[in-house]
């Protein structure tokens, strides 16, 4: 099958799955998940075929159609697969497929229906009597099962569209579809007020970023007349865009890049638009894994990677950074440290991972900011694998804890709080092993994990190019990353169970543990494709670097290999891990976090996310409410408009009253009544004439007859 045909089929399979599930198979849970997983499988197959063909060369595969006529020319949209697209397709296909399979088990397929489950709330579980007449509480199947698969299929469509598109317009379409699905899926359990609020928060916050991104796209279109990558990234266009824009000394390209980057700040949850990502953990764990670890937030980074030639206009390798790149570096590195600090003080197992995601995305953006193109791509791909693994693993842990909650029947215990866990390595061995592998990859455990190679490359770039501030901040973040990862693993799996629920936890089904295993393999081995060439003295070339750098218009050579940053990162990783394990290994049930006493009030600040949510609430949310409620509703709508209407009504009433009382009643009615009354009066008076007495009648006749007679006679007198 022609490569170009396969490319545009990739988004199509999940889209068809969405429509089929929504329109036809909503009732049948088995059919719905089969269609969804089948579509993911087909897209995975297509992606693998394309990846293999891409490895064989002859890139880019592209095909465009003239879609919209614009006067003389057309607006072209189409598909394009180059090296960057190929590696992105690789990790997207694998993670999407794994997450789809995981969702089957996560939503308890095969379990009975809950006895008082409602659509919109997480399933409660149900009581089952076995053959020995023991009553067990077991988990129940998710009531909105098919709907979930429809939504994640739509989401997969959005992601594939974004990845294979060859122009910014369809990229934006995919971007927004994923934003919509993010809203739908975070608010999946819509009957929970916290889920609803989180969904709205996510949508609105990313919207802020999207507005600026749209401005950037519009500006770009107005300057170049096209949105296709081929046109934008061509030498001719880039030269044109190097003109100064007149805004803060940036070039046009730089300004466009900055605006586009703000979109990424929203979508990839960088500071200051990071507030939605931790709240987004309200959604089911597969959602957190897919959207907020592997794909959607990665899309933000993918976009700036794609636009790197644009926002780096005017930058030479080794030269001064453009203003846009400086902004990116600052925000990326700052976010990395900021989020890592907060993650240390979080108790919910998913929250830790959420802040970890924010932090790692900051790494990638910082890498781009300092010009380390390949390192950013490398970390993007590796992060997707191990972060998805970590999220799915946390979902497995939560499922195990929920099993314990159902067993004891005590629903006041939060199954997601790490301080209620402990000792789960014995109860859930597969989960423990895979989670640990993921955690080690995240921390950058030397040599055998993918995270080590990718993180190390970023640190090496910062070190090698002389960006000392970036290097220190990123290194500190790496230390904290290792610390909180060890904290998480220690509290969850090591030691003894701190609660009865943890004692009764159970390993999850194969549909959940199989994806964990597959992803763990990638988390270990995937990094080996990017080993720096210098390490082995040039014997093994850095395949990844050579492959991906083909995307850029100019060849970017790999950095000279330096042992020092690699050593430093090894020390940082190992020391962080050890420290984390050592602080938390003896925490018993009911004991507080040891750090709380150590850090005092700073710990409280960390735990409360440095009060950014409260700040935004005060500065943005409450004024918006005030504007809507008081200003617009009370003053404008009810006061001005309604007041005007009421005044008009009152004026009309009074005019009507005046007309009625002073004209209608006296004049019109009066006239009518006067006619009637006058006639009656006339009649009453004249009735007196009819006395019934004949003589009087005759008298009257005679009077008039005599009168007429005399009148006649008198007239005869006149000549």
């Amino acid at each position, binding site marked *: 099958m022609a490569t170009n045909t396969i490319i545009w089929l990739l988004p199509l399979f999940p889209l068809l799955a969405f429509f089929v599930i929504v329109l036809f198979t909503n009732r049948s849970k088995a059919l719905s998940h089969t269609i969804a997983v089948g579509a993911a499988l087909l897209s995975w197959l297509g992606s693998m075929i394309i990846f293999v063909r891409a490895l064989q060369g002859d890139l880019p595969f592209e095909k465009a159609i003239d879609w919209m006529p614009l006067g003389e020319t057309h607006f072209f949209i189409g598909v394009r697969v180059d090296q960057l697209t190929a590696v992105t397709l690789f990790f997207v296909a694998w993670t999407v497929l794994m997450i789809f399979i995981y969702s089957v088990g996560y939503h308890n397929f095969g379990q009975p229906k809950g006895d008082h489950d409602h659509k919109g709330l997480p399933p409660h579980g149900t009581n089952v009597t076995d053959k020995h007449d023991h009553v067990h509480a077991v988990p129940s199947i998710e009531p909105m099962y098919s709907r979930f698969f429809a939504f994640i299929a739509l989401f997969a469509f959005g992601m594939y569209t974004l990845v294979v598109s060859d122009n910014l317009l369809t990229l934006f379409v995919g971007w927004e579809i994923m934003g919509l699905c993010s809203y739908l899926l975070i608010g999946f359990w819509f009957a929970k007020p916290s889920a609803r609020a989180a969904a709205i928060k996510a949508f609105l916050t990313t919207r802020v970023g999207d507005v600026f991104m749209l401005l950037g796209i519009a500006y770009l279109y107005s300057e170049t007349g096209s949105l296709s990558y081929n046109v934008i990234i061509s030498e001719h266009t880039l030269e044109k865009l190097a003109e100064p824009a007149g805004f803060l000394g940036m070039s046009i390209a730089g300004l466009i890049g900055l605006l586009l980057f703000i979109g990424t700040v929203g979508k990839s949850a960088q500071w200051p638009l990071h507030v939605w990502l931790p709240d987004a953990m309200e959604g089911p764990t597969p959602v957190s894994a897919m959207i907020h670890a592997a794909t959607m937030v990665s899309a933000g980074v993918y976009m700036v990677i794609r636009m790197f030639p644009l926002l780096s206009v005017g930058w030479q390798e080794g030269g001064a950074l453009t203003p846009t790149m400086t902004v990116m570096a600052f925000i990326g590195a700052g976010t990395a440290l900021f989020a890592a600090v907060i993650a240390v003080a979080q108790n919910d197992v998913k929250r830790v991972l959420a802040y970890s995601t924010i932090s790692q995305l900051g790494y990638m953006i910082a890498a781009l900011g300092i010009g380390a193109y390949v390192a950013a791509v490398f970390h993007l791909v590796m992060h997707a694998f191990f972060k998805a693994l970590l999220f799915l693993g946390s979902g497995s842990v939560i499922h195990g804890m929920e099993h314990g909650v159902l067993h004891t029947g005590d629903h006041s215990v939060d199954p997601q709080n790490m301080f209620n866990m402990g000792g789960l390595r014995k109860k859930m061995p597969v989960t423990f092993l895979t989670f640990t592998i993921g955690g080690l990859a995240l921390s950058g455990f030397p040599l055998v994990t993918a995270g080590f190679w990718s993180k190390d490359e970023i640190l090496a770039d910062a070190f090698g190019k002389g960006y000392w501030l970036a290097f220190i901040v990123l290194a500190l973040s790496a230390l904290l990353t290792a610390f909180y990862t060890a904290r998480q693993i220690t509290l969850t799996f090591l030691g003894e169970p701190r609660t009865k629920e943890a004692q009764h936890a159970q390993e999850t089904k194969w549909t959940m543990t199989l994806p964990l295993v597959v992803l763990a393999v990638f988390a270990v081995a995937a990094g080996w494709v990017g080993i720096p060439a210098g390490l082995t003295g040039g014997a093994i070339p850095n395949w990844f670097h050579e492959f991906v750098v083909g995307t850029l218009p100019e060849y970017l050579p790999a950095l000279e290999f330096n042992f020092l940053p690699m050593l430093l990162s090894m020390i940082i990783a190992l020391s962080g891990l050890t420290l984390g394990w050592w602080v938390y290994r003896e925490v018993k049930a009911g004991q507080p976090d040891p750090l709380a006493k150590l850090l005092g009030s700073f710990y409280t600040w960390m735990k409360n996310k440095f009060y950014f949510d409260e700040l935004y609430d005060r500065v943005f949310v409450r004024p918006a409410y005030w504007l809507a409620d008081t200003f617009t509703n009370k003053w404008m709508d009810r006061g001005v408009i309604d007041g005007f209407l009421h005044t008009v009504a009152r004026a009309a009433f009074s005019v009507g009253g005046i007309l009625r009382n002073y004209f209608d009643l006296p004049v019109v009615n009066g006239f009518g009544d006067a006619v009637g009354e006058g006639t009656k009066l006339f009649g009453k008076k004249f009735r007196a004439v009819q006395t019934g*007495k004949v*003589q*009087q009648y005759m*008298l009257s006749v*005679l*009077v008039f*007859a*005599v009168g007429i*007679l*005399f009148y006649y*006679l008198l007239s*005869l007198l006149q000549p």
Partner: protein
Amino acid sequence: MTIEKIIFLVIAAVTLGAAVMVVTARKLIHSALWLILVLFGVAVVYGLLDAGFLAVAQVVIYIGAIAILFIFAVMLTRRVMNDTDSQNNQYWWVAAPLSVLLFGGLTWMLSRWQGFSTELPKLTPEAKSGMLKQLGQVLVSPDGYVLPFELASILLVAALIGAIWVAGDRK
């Protein structure tokens, strides 16, 4: 002043005087009797006008039947009317001047007519003597007054039946 004029003036005065008494007498029976005098006077006037048959008819019919009828009626309705009360109704003071005015008007109107003062045309003696026969012929001849004659007789029959029925005592 011929003898006829004197006779006429006397008779006119008597008749008019009796007529005034008819309409002003207090007792009703007196009015009826004064009416008889009026009728007599009128009969004489007919005689003066050479209408001998009419004069006789006047006496026989009017005085002999109608006046007697009046007297009967007065007697039959005596119980109610107290003769000492006034016989005039409340508007008599309008009727009097009115009558005078009407008289004045009539006279004046007639005086303007050119035939007002015609003299008496002569009648031949044959005409005078044959008058009754001629009257009879006129009354019953087809080119005369036979139709009104017959109708008048039907009218009298109808009046007769009517009067009997209206005034009859129904049990």
